[in-house]
């Protein structure tokens, strides 16, 4: 095992014992949200960051996951059985993504990004109007299965670890290189025999699956959803992009770093700025894009690489005999 893997496993073990030490439910709640947003950022990053297919409507998949669980519970299954919804929610989201991907991936440019956005809006309208199935604007309410937050913490920690490891594994294999090739130059990738539509679809399926699972988890944890929350463009779709961009697009740790900063900042903004907090989020997006287009992890990595290169290079005009 490499040093990085050992370090990650050590970190995971450390994170796993947190509920034994921290009993403050507020702190645990914050940590759960951080991990949930890590999963969401990872999913978006796989499709948007690594494969280059930006989506403005991942709330569609989040909402499908959440409503799958919600409807399962509403139709009479006990809340505990709703844990199946985690898997079912992911599968339902992946199925929906297959349809939209099949339609849109034959086209290039902004079509996909905005078709998904349109999908999220249509789903929101359906959830709002199909009252027999979704309770409409009232939303679905149930009592969460566990009283203690620790269980939710462990489940979402496992989700975050699995999604991160799987995406890392994918990105270090053949599939990952296909994704990168498509992002960098689709024509070139296709001329080398990569079926771009197929691999974009695979990336989308994985991404939508994890987003759907995260949505199901959200429903189980919160015990309440309504169409305006889970299909929200600003609160889900845009924030998934923001989390990824803040941390670093197309980096392994970017979404996790972005999620932590996002949750912290939104708490601080909400507490001290009250209703003005979204103005600062908007300003934050603008500042990040202008000054840190590679995100925090990306900028850090660039700086480190530059320094390494400078240290490795011989001083200008110095003797080169030994090196030669």
């Amino acid at each position, binding site marked *: 095992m490499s040093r990085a893997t050992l370090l990650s496993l050590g970190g995971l073990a450390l994170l796993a014992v947190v509920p034994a030490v921290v009993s403050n439910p507020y702190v645990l709640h914050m940590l759960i949200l951080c991990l949930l947003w890590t999963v969401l950022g990872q999913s978006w990053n796989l499709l948007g960051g690594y494969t*280059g297919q930006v989506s403005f409507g991942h709330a569609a998949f989040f909402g499908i996951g959440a409503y799958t669980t919600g409807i399962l519970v509403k139709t009479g299954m006990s809340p505990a059985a709703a844990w199946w919804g985690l898997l079912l929610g992911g599968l339902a989201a992946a199925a929906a993504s297959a349809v939209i991907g099949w339609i849109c991936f034959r086209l290039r440019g902004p079509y996909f990004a905005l078709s998904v956005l349109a999908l999220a809006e249509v789903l929101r309208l359906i959830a709002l109007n199909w009252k027999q199935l979704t309770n409409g604007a009232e939303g679905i309410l149930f009592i969460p299965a566990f009283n203690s937050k620790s269980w939710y913490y462990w489940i979402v920690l496992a989700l975050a670890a699995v999604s991160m490891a799987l995406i890392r594994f994918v990105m270090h294999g053949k599939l990952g290189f296909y994704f990168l090739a498509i992002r960098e130059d689709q024509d070139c990738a296709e001329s080398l025999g990569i079926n771009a539509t197929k691999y974009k679809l695979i990336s989308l399926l994985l991404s939508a699956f994890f987003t759907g699972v995260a949505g199901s988890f959200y429903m189980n944890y919160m015990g309440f959803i309504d169409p305006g929350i889970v299909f929200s463009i*600003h609160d889900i779709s845009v924030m998934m992009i923001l989390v990824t961009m803040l941390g670093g697009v197309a980096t392994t740790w970017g979404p996790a770093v972005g999620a932590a900063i996002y949750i912290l900042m939104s708490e601080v903004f909400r507490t001290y700025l009250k209703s003005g907090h979204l103005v600062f989020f908007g300003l934050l997006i603008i500042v990040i894009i202008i000054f840190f287009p590679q995100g925090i992890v*990306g900028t850090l990595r660039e700086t480190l690489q530059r320094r390494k290169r400078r240290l490795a290079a011989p001083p200008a005009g110095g003797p080169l005999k030994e090196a030669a």
Partner: protein
Amino acid sequence: MELLAQVLISGILLGGLYALIGLGMSLIMGVMKIINLAHGELMMVGMYITFWAFTIGKIDPYVSLLIVIPALFVLGAMLQKWLIAPVMEAESILPENQVLLTVGIGLVLSNLALLAFTADYRSVPVSYASKTIYWDVKMAGQTISLSFSFPMLVAFAIALALGGALFLFLGYTDLGRMIRATAQDARAASLMGVNTKRITYITFGLGSALVGAAGALLAPVYYLFPQIGGPFTLKAFIITVLGGLGNVAGAVLGGVVLGLAESLGSVYVSLGYKDAFGFIIFVLVLIFLPKGLLGKGRA
């Protein structure tokens, strides 16, 4: 029969306004190849200017066009010059950075409005807000009385006039030719001596002015609140895709198609799903006519 005719009329009148919203986005998309997701928020700014001009200065919404158009032009040009243009030059992994930037701009605009004006729904209570004009038509031996909403009729006429002015401007003036040249091939245009940077400022300004004007025209018939922009951004995008990206004549057609789809759908299918019809048409066009309804240009 009477209902159908009435629905068609209101759909077409609404479509004229939608066309104006779509024109602005189509222009920006044609020249700069970016989607402006702050488009609806710019319309919201136009609506608030109209509202305050009416509330404080007792200025009629149609007169306030004279304030809204220059104000939004300057706002759009400044956004392009100081925020979007620098990002278009910076290198990054995702070319969609500029689009995300417009999301940020939209968030700032709508939430500043929220802070300044609260989330209250407001309206511009002009005396003619619910005035209607009746027109009796003899059809198949029966007399049908058709009604036209006066503010919608005026809005439609002004929207058509503005669209026509834009058409003439783009077609027959040097500046218009420069904008079209930049849209076709920015590099070639700059080799021919066009200051393409300045053209992008002007284009963004024009696009903002058009959508701001739509906001002013909408103010007498619609209520306004800070978050009103979002759905209109989506509508503008649907219109632009329907008409073909960057196609000015197509945007007008797209606007009318969307207006008709919404009014037909809300009467004959369900009011709750009114906004869904636009998306359904959008997806159908994407599948079957990816070049837009007029089919010009490449997809």
